[in-house]
């Protein structure tokens, strides 16, 4: 079966399998909605609609779309990957870049309350530029620190939103 709409270097069968994964995910989400709704205790409600009804309906919709999508995929339908000027769909997903990027993102979450935004934000920016292939450590470090300290001042002084100061308390 040919896949005119999708353009990946991976074979159509692998692509189809991951597309079926989307259908599976929809099915699981639908099951979750239904299961969660059924667990709700009965509360006196006027008419046929109570807190369960809509979750049941949305769960049914998810399960229905899961089935329709599975049929579509099995008949050769493929999701159209989002294109863009900065996007090169000629190769598959670059998991290393994505992994490094996620690591930088998680580092910020773990550090923001402990070390403060001026440090964690700089780690986030520096880590992301590194993940995306920029190799100017000194320049990137300066930009990172300037951005995180600058936004800290902007939010705390100009906007009145207290981003955590962390270990730099007393210095900034």
């Amino acid at each position, binding site marked *: 079966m040919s896949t005119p709409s999708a353009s990946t270097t991976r074979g159509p069968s692998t692509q189809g399998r991951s*597309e079926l994964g*989307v259908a599976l995910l929809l099915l699981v989400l639908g099951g979750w909605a239904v299961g969660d709704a059924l667990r709700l205790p009965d509360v006196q409600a006027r008419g046929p609609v109570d*807190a369960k009804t809509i979750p049941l309906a949305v769960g049914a919709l998810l399960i229905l*779309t899961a089935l329709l999508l599975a049929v579509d995929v099995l008949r050769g339908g493929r999701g159209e990957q989002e294109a863009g000027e900065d*996007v090169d769909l000629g190769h598959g997903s670059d998991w290393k870049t994505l992994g490094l990027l996620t690591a930088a993102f998680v580092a910020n979450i773990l550090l923001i309350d402990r070390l403060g*935004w001026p440090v964690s934000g700089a780690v986030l920016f520096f880590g992301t530029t590194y993940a995306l292939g*920029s190799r100017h450590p000194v320049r990137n470090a300066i930009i990172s620190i300037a951005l995180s300290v600058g936004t800290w001042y902007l939010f705390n002084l100009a906007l009145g939103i207290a981003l955590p100061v962390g270990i730099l308390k007393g210095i900034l």
Partner: protein
Amino acid sequence: MDALTDLLNGFATAAHPTNLLYAFVGVLLGTAIGVLPGIGPAMTIALLLPLTYSLEPTQAFIMFAGIYYGGMYGGSTTSILLNTPGESASVITAIEGNRMARAGRGAAALATAAIGSFVAGTIGTLCLALLAPQVVKLAIKMGAPDYFAVMVLAFIAVTTVLGSSKVRGLAALAIGLLIGLIGIDPTSGQQRLTLGIPELADGIDVVVVAVALFAVGEAMWIAAHLRRTPVEIIGVGAARMNRNDWRRSWKPWLRGTAIGFPFGAVPAGGAEIPTFLSYVTEKKLTKHPEEFGKGAIEGVAGPEATNNASAAGGLVPLLTLGIPTTATAAVMLGAFQGYGIQPGPRLLETQPELVWGLVASLFIGNAILLALNLPLAPMWAKLLRIPRPYLYAGILFFASIGAYAANLSTFDLWLLLVLGALGFGMRRFGLPVVPAIIGIILGPTAEEQMRRALQISDGQLSGLYNTWFSKAVYVVILLVVVVPPIVGRLRTPKKTNEPQHAEKGE
């Protein structure tokens, strides 16, 4: 003329020097962020939202008005110079606009886009000011079943119009509705889909969802597929047009406005269909058909005006009914809700200063936009050269601040990551993001209206369609669902056969 008096009062609010400054800053930031490749108006608003947290609602919305138009104009600049539309509505502009830029006529393309946006935005905003009070008069009489019907229409329209695959659009909508259900059910007080996590009991912050699906999802998607070769960017001087350009532009501007506003004002569509209609119209009416496809100025002037007029039109259902029809309007509705303001027929009564200040700021923002963008076009063009690692690092950086600043909680950052991964997956598998956003924001309100309608009818299902208005809307919904496939089948039997033959021949 009631509306005009109210509008003048609005100008009095908006013309206050501090408020003018907010409008100016909004336009400047909106354009600067909107110009960045891959950032559409909805993402611009979502990313800039934290800046307004500490402001009074009126000032925040005055700044929004600036960001709104600035972000849209920025998006068209990008599509003309870089051929990378930030939003589906700019796709049509990119066709002729980018060709013009490649042919060395970028300045004229930017100018006709800017002036066309100004003309259409001004007329559109005037129509908004005149139409909104009338719609409110009608809307006050609307009951729960009518609202529910209109929301169903919005759901159906957004899933069938956008994207190439209806199944995937429907799946995206269902995911959005599911996320919208998370939290305490306002009617019965029961926790739904919260997994026992206390932070989820209040529901998921709309800003976090919008930033995650648009900004984080986009940054992750691009990071995984980053083009390593530098992008070709076309340099450009200050935006200006010669006399011939003016002669060829003014009619498309007005026609575009006439096409765009009604489409925007009807809660059923967004800007994709009208911009396409405008393009086709101009192609048919032009005296230079040979230039179409090679950079015809009518093909930029018409769709750009249409886009802006439909954006102004889109504010009618947003402000009077509380129903967003585009991603941008959905994010704005989220922002309203963040201030505890529920747009709807009562809004004009309860918050006249806010609404008319917003409308007046749209006029002012439009004028600032024109004054700013004609001379500053070369500077915006330079922003396109920002190295991609900095661009996407910056997006993640500001997305993180925005999500954290909303509640000062790291939980929202984890949510940002999880929903960002969802946004990545949706891009990977061709699930459109907009139906999901509309589902998240409109889902809870739709549920409330439906339950109210059924309570009034004492559980009779007929309570959902017992008014003439709701019946009419369901007929429209039926037409939206049934007509396009029939028309498509009548029109394209040849087209669907040809590729199959080609495949067999291989």
